C-alpha cells in the first residue's frame, strides 16, 4: 500500500468522527520505483493532507520531506522528486493501521490492508 492510499483512507467504524489519519505500525516497507509524473503530483498536492503524509513517511523511515509545503515549491524539481518518492514509491508491505479514535487495528498483509469491519462496527 502506497502512502497515497494511506492518505486517502480513514477509519470507517460506526460512531468514529475523526478516523484520519490512520496510525501506521511498520513491520516491513518495500520500495518500488514508479514513473515520475509531475502533472499528477501537482494535481495531488491540493488533495493530500500534507501533514499526515510527512508523518507517515517519517514512520516509514523517509525523513526527506520538508515540514510544510507551499504551492511555490511545485516548481522545484527537487521537492517534486521527494514528494513523488514518499507518495508513490514507499509501500507498506506488512504492518498495521490503527484507528486514531478507537485504537482498532487493521492488519496489512502483502500490501493489502484488511478494512473489513465486524458486524457491531457497521
Amino acid at each position, binding site marked *: 500500500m502506497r502512502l497515497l492510499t494511506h492518505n*486517502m483512507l480513514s477509519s470507517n467504524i460506526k460512531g468514529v468522527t475523526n478516523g484520519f489519519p490512520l496510525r501506521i505500525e511498520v513491520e516491513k516497507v518495500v520500495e518500488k520505483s514508479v514513473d515520475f509524473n509531475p502533472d499528477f503530483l501537482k494535481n495531488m498536492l491540493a488533495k493530500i493532507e500534507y501533514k499526515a503524509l510527512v508523518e507517515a513517511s517519517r514512520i516509514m523511515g523517509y525523513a526527506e520531506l520538508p515540514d510544510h509545503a507551499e504551492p511555490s515549491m511545485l516548481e522545484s524539481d527537487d521537492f517534486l522528486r521527494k514528494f513523488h518518492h514518499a507518495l508513490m514509491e514507499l509501500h507498506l508491505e506488512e504492518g498495521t493501521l490503527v484507528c486514531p479514535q478507537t485504537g482498532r487495528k487493521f492488519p496489512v498483509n502483502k500490501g*493489502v490492508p484488511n478494512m473489513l469491519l465486524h458486524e457491531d462496527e457497521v
Partner: protein
Amino acid sequence: MTSRPELKAPPEIFYNDEEARKYTSSSRIIEIQAQLTERALELLALPDDGVPKLLLDIGCGSGLSGETLTESGHQWIGFDISPSMLDVALEREAEGDLILGDMGQGLGVRPGVIDGAISISAVQWLCNADKSCHEPRKRLKSFFESLYRCLARGARAVFQVYPENLAQRELILGYAMRAGFAGGVVVDFPHSAKRRKEYLVLTCGPPSLSSATPKAKGEDEESCSDEESSGDEENQTVSISDRHRPRKKQKLNKKVKGREWVLRKKEQMRRKGNAVPQDTKYTARKRKARF
C-alpha cells in the same frame, strides 16, 4: 439452475481460489473485462488533458479492470471483498493499491479526493443479504453515501451492473439518487441478449449539462418508441358531444390532461428507470361516452 453468481454464494465465498483462477487463465473473461472497463472509462468522460487521475475501482477483483486503467495512465485504488481475487491481483502485479473491504460497509475514503469511480459487475451484489446482519437497503445507502462523499465535485461514477430485474435496477438507482447523485442508466445494445450491458452513469452534484446521460451504443433510433410515433396521427382524443352535459361538467373537462401530457410523464418515469407500460394507441384514450 441459475447462472447468476449472486444467487450461489456470498462474494467472498463464491470468488474462491478456483473461481479466481479463471480470471487469469480464461482469455475470454479477460477480454470481456477489458472491454467493459474501456467502455466504463469512456462513459466516465474524464477531461482529456493528459494529467493522470486518481480513480476508484470498486470490486476490482483480480485487477483486470485496473489494468485497463493503468494502460490509460491513471492511478487507481481498488476495493474488493474476496481475498482470493486480491491474491490473483497481487500475482498479476496490479499497479494500483488494493484494499480488502466491503463496499456495503461504506468506503472509508476522505471526502472530495477521488476524480472518478468505476465498478465492473459488482454493485448488484449489494442487493443480496448474505448474512443475518445484512440489510440490502442499508448497505446500498451507506455505499452510495460514502461514494458521494469521497468524489470530487462534478466527478462521475460509472457502474456496469447486471440487475436481476427491473425492481433491482430501480432499487439501486433510487438509492444513488437519494445519496445526491444525478444521472441514469445507459443500456448498450438493448436488443441483444448477449451483448446487452447496462451502465449506471452517476454524476456528483446537481444536474447540469455535463450530467446528461450519454448515448448508448447499438441503439437504433429509439425503436422502443416507434409505435408511439405512428400513433401520433390519432393524437387527438375522440371528441364526444357535450351538448347534453351540464355546464359545470363541461368546464371541468377542459382541465383533463391530454395524451401529450401523459406521454411526457411516462417518458419522465422511464428516464428514472421505472417500469412504465409501453405507449400504444390506447394510451390516454378517452373512454366512450356510454361507459
